[in-house]
């Protein structure tokens, strides 16, 4: 748990951080966001005492940071710095082992931990353990930076724009990975970004700052639905409805689809029973093969001819994807519904455009679903 009370940092006459109070509950992700220079990094660095506050108090796990030895405090706080800062003279394995080494772990334990963490951040240990930082791409280096911060399994993580140096495509992948890792590890995280989409996607709580002052500290839904002031309203942007979709997972709004097995296409009519236009076709293993448009079916044609075969990876969304992913996939393909598959491409449901629309306008109901699920 992290608690800041009335924290202030002065540089000359300027207040980089001005009377900041916020609390990150155990196991929660708080995203600190705001324009460049608003004091995000300064706030983070006061927590691990790289910068001393000019006023206020900071507690980590119930202890005032000023009462702890800085080295001891920092070894318990995983820290991902804005500029990555891997040690260029050490291999990936030894970079990950820096803190465990400081803590006196034995060699074998460090080696095992490095492998485990590379797996966790989605890098193949066989390939990456022996590499040196300059042999890594920006995105790979940031993953190693995250692995390094996790090495000694600190309960609290301070992450300063951990995905800042990554292109949008890979950034989304890393965000998804982060969300997955966090569902597993339940760290207490203070995460800095200036990307509002990233904040909405990852946060349990969002803290929006401007010129060192906290503007709003609330759940992403609250920030989207009730921005505290004009600054927050403008910062969140005009596409609030669209952003809300990021918070809704496909599996929470999907419905069960009309299905026939491959080879029994003639049953499509009966399955559709006049209520569903599209009937999905699956193989014996449950994998999505394609669909049939019952509007195309004529009584005297071979029903198999009405089957449109598809590549499941292209023409469906995963059940843990966000509704926004589903929407953009639908728009991209020009459909008013899309199949939902699991990690083995097995059909598990269907999301319709109507469901997306509903979530956009009355998002709150689905949002409570997610919140409950996350809490449970």
């Amino acid at each position, binding site marked *: 748990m992290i608690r800041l009370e009335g924290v202030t940092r002065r540089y000359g006459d300027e207040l980089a951080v001005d009377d900041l109070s916020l609390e990150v509950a155990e196991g929660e992700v708080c995203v600190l966001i705001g324009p460049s220079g608003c004091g995000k990094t300064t706030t983070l660095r006061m927590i691990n005492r790289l910068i001393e506050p000019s006023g206020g108090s900071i507690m980590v796990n119930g202890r005032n940071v000023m009462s702890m030895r800085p080295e001891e405090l920092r*070894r318990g706080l995983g820290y991902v710095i804005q500029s990555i800062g891997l040690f260029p003279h050490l291999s990936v394995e030894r970079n990950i082992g820096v803190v465990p080494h*400081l803590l006196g772990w034995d060699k074998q334990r460090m080696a095992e931990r490095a492998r485990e963490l590379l797996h966790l951040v989605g890098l193949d240990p066989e390939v990456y353990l022996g590499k040196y930082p300059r042999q890594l791409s920006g995105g790979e280096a940031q993953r190693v930076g995250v692995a390094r911060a996790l090495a000694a399994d600190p309960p609290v993580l301070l992450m300063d724009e951990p995905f800042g140096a990554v292109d949008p495509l890979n950034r989304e992948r890393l965000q998804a990975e982060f969300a997955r890792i966090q569902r597993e590890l339940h760290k207490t995280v203070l995460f800095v970004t200036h990307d509002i989409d990233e904040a909405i996607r990852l946060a349990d709580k969002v803290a929006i700052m401007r010129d060192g002052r906290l503007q709003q500290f609330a759940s992403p839904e609250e920030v989207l639905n009730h921005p505290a002031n004009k600054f927050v309203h403008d910062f969140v942007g005009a596409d609030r409805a669209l952003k809300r979709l990021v918070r809704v997972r496909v599996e929470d709004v999907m419905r069960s689809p009309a299905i026939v097995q491959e080879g029994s296409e003639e049953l499509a009519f009966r399955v559709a029973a006049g209520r569903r236009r599209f009937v999905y076709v699956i193989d014996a293993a449950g994998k999505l093969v394609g669909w049939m448009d019952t509007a195309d079916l004529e009584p005297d044609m071979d029903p198999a001819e009405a089957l449109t075969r598809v590549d499941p990876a292209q023409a469906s969304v995963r059940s843990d994807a966000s509704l926004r992913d589903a929407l953009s996939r639908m728009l991209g393909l020009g459909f008013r519904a899309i199949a939902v598959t699991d990690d083995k491409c097995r059909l598990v449901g269907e999301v319709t455009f109507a469901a997306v629309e509903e979530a956009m306008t009355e998002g709150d109901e689905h949002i409570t679903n997610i919140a409950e699920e996350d809490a449970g």
Partner: protein
Amino acid sequence: MSRRRTIAIAVTVAGALAFVWLINATALWEFALRALFPTLRDVLMPRDTLATFVLQHLALVGTSSVLTIAVGVPLGIWVTRRSGAEFRSLVVAGTDLGQTFPPVAVLALAMPVLGFGFWPTIMALFIYGLFPVVSATIAGIEAVPRSVVEAGVGMGMSSSQVLMRAELPLASRVIVSGIRTSVAINIGTATVGAAIGTGGLGVPIIGGLAVQNMAYVLEGAIPAALLAVLADSILAQVESAVTVAEG
């Protein structure tokens, strides 16, 4: 170790052995110098053997370089620490000044204090060689990316751990290259020591100039030049050994 490194080391070792053989090959020197200067009565300085001059020279250069490194590297480190930061420009200016002083002038200044002989020369060489080592140490440490230092501190390293595990390993290549420069300067400058009776390869050079015997001058100058090349290539091996993998 790469094939290239192995070859480079083998060549250096062979060069060192060849050098040892050459400075002991009195007959060869005698023959070659007589061929060049047939009119001279003596072509090798009778005062000592060439090997002795070389050993004296090595003693001068070795002692002064050890001192230079022992003082220069810590001094350079200290002024990059917070505790020594305010002395940074003073130290740089001081060592810089030491180098712009002609070595003979340093000798003249050192003599009244330290007297004739070995130690005044060491003093002069030490002051002379200090600048490249100090400035390379500072440059090497200051070239370490800030993000690396910040990451180290942020992960809970003490400042000495950051120094030993990140800053020095990353600066070592630059520091060794400063030492290379310093040693090269010292090998040449040590010849002036002969003027105040410390021996070394300066003896035949200065003696030869005094009695207009060019064979003596070559007897000192050629081994001094070879020694400089040899020392440089040995240190080059050290430099590539400390150049951390970095892939």
